[in-house]
């Protein structure tokens, strides 16, 4: 089983996109990041690595301070720190399950959210479910560390229905990738 290395990917990778100095290097990495994102959700993370200390600043956002871990049909559920759209959990789907008749996008945007139960940051992939009209239930727009179009994997306005048979937006899931 491949293990997810949060120092090589995840938050640090995303930070590096903005903080590096070699332009060519950054460009090629950014290109890779765009397409590598869909692979993230499939890599388990070991407890040892996930157990690293809380890495601010996002630990202290207003969202993180009031987030809960009990009800994933509410906007303040901890994984939804950067979600925008209808929660699939309110639409007949689940936290990582698209409602019947819709199709999960193979690519996604991501967020780095704090689980209040252990105080640790996890990387979350927001996969849109596509191919049906907007669900309309439980509309949320949380924006912890959400950025603009030039950093698209951290932007929550884009309709992430690439690679699906229809680009109609139905709802959004919040899949655990691993520790961030």
């Amino acid at each position, binding site marked *: 089983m491949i293990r997810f290395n949060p120092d090589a990917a995840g938050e640090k990778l995303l930070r590096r996109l903005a903080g590096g100095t070699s332009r060519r290097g950054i460009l090629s990495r950014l290109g890779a990041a765009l397409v590598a994102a869909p*692979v993230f959700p499939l890599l388990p993370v070991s407890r040892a690595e996930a157990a690293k200390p809380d890495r601010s600043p996002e630990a202290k956002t207003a969202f993180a301070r009031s987030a809960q871990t009990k009800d994933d049909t509410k906007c303040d559920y901890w994984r939804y720190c950067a979600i925008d759209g209808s929660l699939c959990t309110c639409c007949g789907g689940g936290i990582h399950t698209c*409602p*019947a*008749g819709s199709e999960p996008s*193979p690519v996604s945007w991501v967020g780095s959210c704090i689980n209040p139960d252990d105080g640790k940051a996890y990387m979350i992939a927001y996969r849109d*479910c596509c191919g049906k009209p907007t669900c*309309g239930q439980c509309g949320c727009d949380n924006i912890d560390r959400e950025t603009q179009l030039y950093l698209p994997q951290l932007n929550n306005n884009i309709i992430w229905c690439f690679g699906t048979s229809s680009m109609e937006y*139905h709802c959004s899931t919040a899949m655990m990738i691993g520790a961030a």
Partner: protein
Amino acid sequence: MTRLSMVARVALFATAAVAFVAPVMAENVIAEAEEASVSTMEAPKANWFYVRGGWGSAGSSIFDAGTGKMVGMVSTSRDSDLAIDPDGKFYYVAETMWSKVNRGTRMDFVSVYDSKSLKLITEIPTPGRLIVGGFTTNFVLSDDGKTAYDYNFDPASSVNIIDMAKRKFVRAIELPGCASLIVNPGVGFSALCADGTLATVAVKGATQEITRSAEFFDAAADPIYSNVAYDRKKKMAVLLSYTGQVRTVAMGAAPVVSAPFSIQEAGGMRAADVKPLDIAWYPGGMQPSALHRPSGTLWVLMHKGEYWSHKEGAEEIWGLDLAAKKLIKRIPVKGHPRNIEITQDDAAMIMVNGMENNATIIDSKTGEVKHEIENAGGGLISVVEPK
């Protein structure tokens, strides 16, 4: 771009491949990456409401009457009509699309969805249909589910017959001056007409015979709501007029329309009439009545007002025992709902909704509000009819 697209495609394959890897449950792996999946629906259930979004909406949300939760959505493009296969295997959507959304080539067809996967199975092209929202009687299924009757208006009236077993359009029958289709088991279908009659179309292979009842209502003075309820088991239709005159129709080759009775008189009040200035309780809304078939109770959205207020939202829901011709319940209701439906099980749960897109689920036995659902949709409500 080419290079990146290739990488993207590789990533897609990677996703598919890893999906077959068994999850690792070992204690030292806590934050296991999750897999994307797609849920499956149950077959249509008696306690589900199918709620159309507001004007221009493209979906019908399904809510469980017990939990008040949304369990799925059927794609119903703008001004389309939804019908539920009596066997519970399919959803049928009669719809109209243009090749460029609001321009281009017009296409009319019935989309067939598998009721469990909600995947589109096929489309059955038709010659056209009436584009209008909010009516239940433009697209109806025969009791056995094998034939669909799809009303067309262009602006001449006709009815398209569709063989749902073979999944193909059969032929159109001209029907000037009539609309609001009621299935007529073993015969074909009937329809309300502008001359105050009920037309019955006996479909016989490639021909048909159209007969008319005697005139029994005044289509201009006291119209009968187009959203007629039909009871498959009793082979009976229930007609409600703007003033609150209620009639039942025993369907058949020569349908028998009962004498009317007044919903107000059934509640001990004087009957309402067609004269403005008089104040009375009137039915109102787009879908102003719902028939609970097992108990033979008609639930009607009622408001105080003058005549010609037939779309007005409700202040009360009235429960009318059709056999006894007695008003058995009055339930006050908030939000001026304009649509009502009731589940066809013993729970007999009512849903109402209105212009604000919110829905309320009410226990018809106690009048108790069970669930209030924001943004549920403000359009037509459908339920599974007992076979």
